[in-house]
């Protein structure tokens, strides 16, 4: 089942329903499907939580996922994962589910549209100063932009923008390229190789979700910790924010 034709570069161009200025395209539909799946699934699982060892297998699954995400965040954040856990965990789960559901026929990953990934990247772009300011205060946060020297101010600003662009384009490029490769392989060698590529796509989807969440966490951590860390170590220049 082909939803997105091979000459269409993103599911934004597949318009399912149009009424006046309201346009419902495939990206919106699948985004809402993933969101509904996550919300309904979480509500169903967390309805009967049990603190004992005898728990439902779904609760066990959820606990495994959440504790792993939490420990990964905790290793980067140093000051406890609980501040960042809701944001990063939501990003990770949403991207993960919208990526790996591609094995369902007729499903198009909403993350293979540049609009979705740009929205996610813009969320990270605004989350970095919000977390940084709540942690350090406005003055201390703004001082980070002039950290080694005043000359570095434009480079810091440029880095903020270019890494947001890279975050969006990376996720979009990986997912979209994978879809196109499968579509081309279906035309060339129909039966076996597309299945192998689909299986590889599960791995790609998982790794991209991991990378997106980890990069968002690294950006936030570098914005909210660099000064503190440099103060503790008695150094003048703390960790630089990773550019790009």
């Amino acid at each position, binding site marked *: 089942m082909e939803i997105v034709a091979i000459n*269409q*570069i993103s599911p934004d161009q597949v318009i399912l329903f149009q009424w006046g200025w309201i346009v419902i395209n495939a990206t919106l539909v699948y985004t809402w499907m993933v969101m509904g799946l996550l919300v309904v699934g979480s509500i169903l699982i967390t309805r009967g939580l049990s603190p004992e060892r005898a728990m439902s297998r779904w609760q066990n699954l959820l606990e495994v996922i959440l504790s792993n995400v939490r420990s990964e965040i905790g290793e980067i954040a140093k000051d406890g994962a609980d501040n960042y856990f809701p944001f990063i965990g939501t990003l990770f789960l949403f991207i993960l589910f919208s990526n790996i559901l591609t094995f369902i026929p007729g499903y198009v990953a909403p993350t293979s549209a540049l609009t979705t990934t740009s929205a996610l990247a813009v969320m990270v772009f605004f989350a970095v100063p919000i977390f940084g300011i709540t942690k350090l205060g406005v003055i201390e946060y703004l001082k980070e932009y002039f950290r080694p020297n005043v000359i570095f101010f434009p480079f810091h600003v440029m880095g903020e923008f270019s890494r947001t662009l890279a975050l969006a*384009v990376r996720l979009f*490029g990986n997912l979209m390229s994978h879809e196109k490769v499968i579509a081309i392989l279906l035309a060339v060698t129909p039966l076996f190789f597309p299945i192998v590529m689909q299986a590889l796509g599960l791995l790609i989807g998982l790794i991209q979700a991991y*990378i997106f969440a*980890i990069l968002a966490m690294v950006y936030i951590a570098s914005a909210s910790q660099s000064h503190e860390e440099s103060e503790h170590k008695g150094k003048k220049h703390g960790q630089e924010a990773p550019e*790009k």
Partner: protein
Amino acid sequence: MDSISIIAMASIITAGLCMAIGSIGPALGQGRAVHSALSSIAQQPDERNSLTRTLFVGLAMIESIAIYCFVISMILVFANPFWTYIVKKAGG
């Protein structure tokens, strides 16, 4: 040659060249990164988790260059603005 075939030919050749040249650098870079990460893991297996995480972040950074090239060649092939313009002009 009319302008339609010039634009088509230039886009296709440029898309191929962009992919070919643009993937050399990231491929070499990723090879170096994985090489040193593997030898570091072999030396210090205890630090495997943090090494792997740093490796993934670094690979993502390197990979984004190849992804830029890929997106540009995809735009050239599938959503070429010059092509759309010239076809619209020839049609209307």
